[in-house]
């Protein structure tokens, strides 16, 4: 331990040391700001959780979690109000399931084609187009669903209205395609070249190699891609708000009009007084939604990380 004063003597005798020890206050200042900025992502995430818990949890003093989760009646303005989110939960599940089932074969097929089959020119044309799809705002997709798809669905299935879960699910499947394609394609690219070459050496055709070597090797990455697509579909708001129909009953068939958890928040929050029961209930839905998407994303991230390590040499 040096006494105060001795360090400056040491520093003066050694230029390199003095450079290192010169108190660059401005630099320290900037670096502390940089550190703070680095923490911002955590601050916002924690902030989101805190807000959702603070504003949403009080609803459970009015309505038990069981009633809230499995109640089938959402009447926020009746006397007394009832808050059961089962209709929204079922709506979210139904739309997400249909959207995912529709998007997975197309998305994975497209990724396999782009990664293994397509000549460079087609690849270079198709990839930006799919990136373009990711850039189209969700309200625009809702508008397209409203104007073009819902009349089509109405006439094909002889419905009273084309604004139903199925229409929303078709639009959502389109919207979850970009992430499924890009993450699956990355996973296929990560498969070591030696795997494919070994397969060719055994006399397998290109398709057999894709089918029996590439896709199995990339399976966990493709799984993560699907999870991310599911996360996207669960959280999508505007498209569903515009085309799913907005009915408050528990949907029994995909062609019923329905409301999802996201749409319920978006359509209800404007009329909810701050701190009122409906306001709390909507934040509680937000909390459940947040937990669901967080779980899906965490699992996908874990899987991708593991896959990256598996093929890293």
């Amino acid at each position: 331990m040096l006494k105060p004063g001795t360090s400056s003597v040491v520093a003066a005798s050694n230029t390199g040391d003095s450079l290192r020890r010169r108190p660059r206050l401005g630099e320290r200042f900037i670096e502390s700001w940089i550190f703070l900025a680095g923490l911002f992502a955590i601050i916002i995430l924690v902030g989101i959780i805190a807000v959702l818990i603070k504003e949403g949890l009080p609803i459970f003093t009015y309505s038990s979690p069981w009633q809230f989760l499995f109640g089938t009646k959402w009447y926020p303005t009746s006397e007394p109000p009832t808050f059961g989110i089962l209709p929204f939960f079922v709506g979210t599940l139904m739309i997400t399931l249909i959207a995912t089932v529709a998007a997975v074969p197309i998305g994975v097929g497209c990724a396999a084609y782009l990664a293994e089959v397509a000549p460079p020119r087609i690849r270079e044309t198709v990839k930006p187009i799919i990136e373009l799809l990711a850039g189209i705002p969700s309200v625009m997709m809702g508008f397209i669903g409203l104007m073009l798809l819902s009349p089509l669905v109405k006439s094909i299935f002889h419905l009273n209205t084309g604004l139903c879960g199925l229409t929303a699910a078709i639009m959502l499947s389109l919207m979850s395609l970009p992430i499924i394609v890009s993450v699956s394609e990355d996973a296929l690219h990560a498969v070591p070249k030696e795997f494919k070459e070994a397969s060719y050496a055994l006399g397998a055709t290109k398709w057999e190699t894709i089918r029996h070597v590439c896709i199995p090797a990339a399976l966990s990455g493709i799984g993560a891609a699907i999870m991310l697509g599911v996360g996207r579909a669960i959280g999508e708001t505007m498209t569903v708000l515009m085309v799913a129909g907005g009915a408050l009953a528990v949907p029994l068939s995909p062609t019923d009009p329905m409301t999802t958890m996201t749409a319920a928040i978006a359509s209800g929050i404007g009329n909810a007084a701050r701190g009122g029961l409906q306001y709390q209930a909507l934040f509680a839905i937000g909390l459940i939604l947040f937990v669901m998407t967080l779980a899906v994303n965490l699992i996908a991230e874990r899987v991708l990380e593991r896959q990256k390590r598996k093929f890293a040499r």
Partner: protein
Amino acid sequence: MVDRWLIAFIVYVVVNIAVVILAIIKAKMTRKISERTAFGFLGLATALAALPVLFIIIYTIVNGAGAISWSFLTQAPSQAGKAGGILPVIIGTFYLMLGTLVFALPIGVMAGIYLTEYARDNWLTRLINMAIVNLAGVPSIVFGLFGLGVFVLTFHFGLSLLAASLTLACQALAMVITTSREAILAVPREYREGSLAIGATKWQTVRHIVLPQALPGIITGAVLAISRAAGETAPILVTGAAFLVPRLPSSPFDQFMALPYHLYTVASEVPGMSKTTMWGVALVLLVVVLSFDVLAAIIRFRSRQRI
């Protein structure tokens, strides 16, 4: 006799070989055919993924072009949006993009610098990375609730341009951080070492060597982020967008009109809206959002060519 047996044996062998060869050829053929079929399906999947986008864009241009006129772009709406133009709506969206950029860019770039230049590989860094990944997956309406709870109500900004910009900035942050981090990581190590070797401090190196090199990548990310912000509806729906505001916002605490919210309202909420107007609003929104996407692509392409 022997000749006959010999000929019979040779014929037998030849036939056998022929059968085997034919079987091989046939197997090869069916394998080829099954490959063709499979590739056909993969191509079909690709077409199904790519064609709807082109259809949506072309259809919107064809149907919306009729609404686009000088007065549509330069006048305020009248008769509850049924007549007049959408100038305040466009301007509102540009204010939002600007607001998002002002808040998200500095913090995002500094966070990118922290993660690449300063952070050690420890639990905190892992936690930050995890937060970034998960922030990107948070539903937009949840960001809206966060903005409502924090900026509108707790900070008392009210339903305002400021609250909406801050909310969108929080949402854009993950993307700005990720793209800046990639851009900074791509700067060769030797540049930093050269700078440090001639006596520059760490911050001087970052400021004068690393950042200028990473600039195109950072700008690409920022442009993409504000293009997303321009199209977001759910977060501004709860934090301050309004359908009809008589004047342009004169302060950050005013409510505002914005393209995506306007499209939502004219399409879903206002009965008796003319289809031409709706497609016109949709086209303007699409052009604003996609032109920024294209701008980002051009910047990225240019900077790649330079290297």
